[in-house]
């Protein structure tokens, strides 16, 4: 080893170096204008395919020979249902070349294509890498799906597609007025999931009031079973039963005010009552030990193995834990237990809403093809294929006759029937993802349910988060219509 040094003055002197780097800097400044060209592809090139001829069989005027590109999220629902629907498209338009791909990384795969102005024609924008819908809508990246909703349905040409959907689906696709930007294809029932068998062993039925709930938890505790568990690492599962609980106590206006980020929305007495009820579970030790450190699979596993009675979850849990839920489990979903008789909404009020958001980009080359593919997916046959392969309901209202339903699905259908029109649909989780998951979920509810914060301070904290979101001009804001 040794050391070296500049040994003569003929090399690149220090002064020269500084001068030259300054010159380089000067060159760099004008190139800044070029920089902006990097992020923005040529957005003016509007090379859409020609429209086809509009007929009764082809109400959306699809160009039968134009290529179609579909990108599907490959998650809990798999891709079979989408491939089945694609086969129908290919049969209907034999000349069309359909490119189909599935990925778990929607954002990584598609973000550059949105920026470049060449997105595919139909996307299932779902999963952990979902692209922010608020931003996509705000930046006018999506096609209005109204023509699809007003087109006749495949099964019954006398009926519009709009009239074949489950309640709430069309509204969920709206963000700021009439246009419908998103078609939620799956239909999820949220609530308190439990094993009917476990309740029977305790000689109990599903509690309709909170007092009964606490009594049942006390009974279970004596047997060494915890009342509740939840994914402690993802505490934003708690709202699946907590939000409809709030609506049941104080009416759906309370949830709307919360969604609209109105000042003091969280200070409503119904919110306070619901939070205090949940905190009682913590204070009385009815939460499974260690829950705050469990992830969703961990808590669901403990629950499926009978260590806890109840878990707030969505209807996907049946498919997700299919391997470990015992055969005699009798999986069921319950609407949130009410507080008392002064509740504004009846028992049965439940949260159900769309999942698997499908979008047709505004810069797609063949948007008619994308819409047509959605129309095919919303037919009874495609819906049945979806329900059979995923154990989940689709946005198509019906489509469960003649196929055998699993326990959880059956109880979901029953819960929807019981709820009737009392289906609530809180929107925070698709309008303000960060507020819902990180701030309300992890930072506030997570702390409260771990016993580290009291309900009053939790509400104050959430209100502060909501106010900050309402004030932040870099976030696009939405309102219930």
């Amino acid at each position, binding site marked *: *080893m*040794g*050391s070296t040094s500049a040994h003569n003055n*003929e090399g690149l002197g220090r002064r020269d170096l500084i001068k030259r780097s300054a010159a380089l800097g000067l060159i*760099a400044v004008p190139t*800044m204008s070029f*920089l*902006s060209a*990097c*992020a*923005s*592809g040529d*957005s003016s090139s509007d090379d859409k395919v020609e429209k086809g001829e509009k007929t009764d069989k082809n109400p959306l005027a699809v160009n039968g020979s134009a290529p179609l590109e579909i990108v599907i999220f490959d998650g809990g629902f798999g891709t079979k249902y989408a491939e089945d629907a694609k086969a129908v498209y290919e049969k209907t338009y034999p000349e069309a070349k359909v490119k189909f791909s599935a990925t778990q990384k929607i*954002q990584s795969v598609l*973000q550059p294509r*949105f*920026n*470049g*102005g060449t997105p595919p024609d139909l996307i299932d924008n779902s999963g952990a*890498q979902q*692209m*922010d819908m*608020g*931003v*996509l809508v*705000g*930046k*006018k*990246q999506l096609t209005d799906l109204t023509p699809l909703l007003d087109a006749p349905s495949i099964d019954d040409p006398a009926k519009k597609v709009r009239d074949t959907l489950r309640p709430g689906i069309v509204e969920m696709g709206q963000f700021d007025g009439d246009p419908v930007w998103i078609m939620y294809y799956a239909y999820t029932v949220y609530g308190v999931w439990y094993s009917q068998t476990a309740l029977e062993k305790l000689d109990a039925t599903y509690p309709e009031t909170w007092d009964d709930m606490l009594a049942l938890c006390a009974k279970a505790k004596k047997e060494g079973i915890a009342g509740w568990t939840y994914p*402690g*690492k*993802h*505490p934003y599962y708690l709202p699946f039963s907590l939000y409809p609980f709030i609506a049941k106590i104080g009416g759906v206006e309370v949830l709307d005010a919360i969604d609209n980020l109105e000042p003091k929305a969280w200070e409503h007495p119904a919110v306070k009552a619901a939070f205090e009820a949940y905190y009682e579970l913590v204070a009385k030790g009815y939460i*499974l*030990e*260690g*829950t*705050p*450190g*469990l*992830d969703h699979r*961990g808590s669901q*596993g*403990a629950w499926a193995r009978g*260590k806890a009675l109840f878990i707030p979850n969505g209807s996907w849990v049946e498919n997700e834990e299919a391997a470990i839920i015992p055969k005699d489990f009798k999986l069921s979903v319950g609407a949130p237990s009410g507080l008392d008789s002064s509740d504004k909404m009846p028992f049965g009020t439940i949260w159900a809403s769309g999942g698997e958001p499908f979008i047709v980009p505004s810069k797609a080359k063949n948007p008619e093809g994308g819409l047509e593919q959605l129309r095919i997916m919303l037919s009874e046959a495609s819906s049945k294929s979806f329900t059979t392969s995923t154990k989940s309901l689709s946005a198509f209202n019906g489509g469960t006759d003649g196929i055998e339903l699993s326990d959880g699905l059956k109880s979901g259908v029953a819960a929807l029937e019981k709820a009737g029109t009392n289906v609530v649909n809180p929107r925070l989780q698709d309008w303000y*993802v*960060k507020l819902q*998951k*990180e701030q309300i*979920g*992890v*930072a506030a509810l*997570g*702390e409260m349910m*771990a016993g*580290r914060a009291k309900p009053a301070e939790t509400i104050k904290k959430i209100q502060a988060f909501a106010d900050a979101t309402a004030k932040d001009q*870099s*976030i696009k804001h939405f309102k219930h219509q």
Partner: protein
Amino acid sequence: MQHGKYRFIVGFLVVPMALYVIFVIWPFIQSIYYSFTDWTGLSPDFKMVGFDNYAKMLDDDVFWKSLQHSVLLAVLLPLVTLGLALFFAFMLNVGGRRRKGAAVTGVRGSGFYKIAYFFPQVLSIAIVAILFQFAFDPAQGMINGTLKAVGFDDVPTWLGDPDLALWVIMAVLVWCTTGFFVVLFSAGMASIPKDFYEAALLDGASRFTTFFRITLPLLWDTVQSGWVYMGILALGAEGFAIVHIMSVGPGGPDYSTTVLPLYVYQAAFRDGQAGYATTIGVALLIVTLAFAAIVMRVGRRERLEF
């Protein structure tokens, strides 16, 4: 021979320089540029917003928490990791009982230990994170299982506890990086001439003295580069991966484990605020540069030649 000298130098440098500028410098300039825009990352149109993003950042509690955690990681991790690695490497190479024919040797079985220490380095960081996530699982995890077996009833929730979560993350980072530095320092120690140790031992020096008077000074260059490397790992990819996979939320509970690169990722890919994300990225760049500068400055010593 001055004639054509520049042309000669430029001829050699132009290709690597061009590659460096295009793939390293250019993205830096670009991200600094984007930090002054309101780019969402999801559409090609955006406008300049001046210093709005920076003002927002300075006013953002989560940013300050992330910064605090990142700095803590950058200071503590190298200290613990390199300390442990130096100790292990010394024991493996010099610390053994004196045996026939050799003045200095490692402890018995040092060949085996060297391989064992290096194993974590072979595992991908994501696998390490997932394995430890299982180990720290409060209900079924190995660690709480062991604690319960030896009679502790009140076991902690580890990653679910804001007071412990960051320490758990750090422990995992130490576990998976120490081995690499053990091997690195072992290689460095192997190049230190044995006569030095022999001379010191003849003079009656203890192991403690030989370590601080001979090993450490002669290994200083390696330690210093290891220090910078480890700090950058803690500020960047490794810190991000472990927090992202293991922590509650991720980043929780209640922001107790969030770090700068995680916050950049969330702003860019979850919140659709690529402009703001690059602003935080610029802050991270400054922290990283400052860290490297401080380490180089503090660690400057006269180089020993041997």
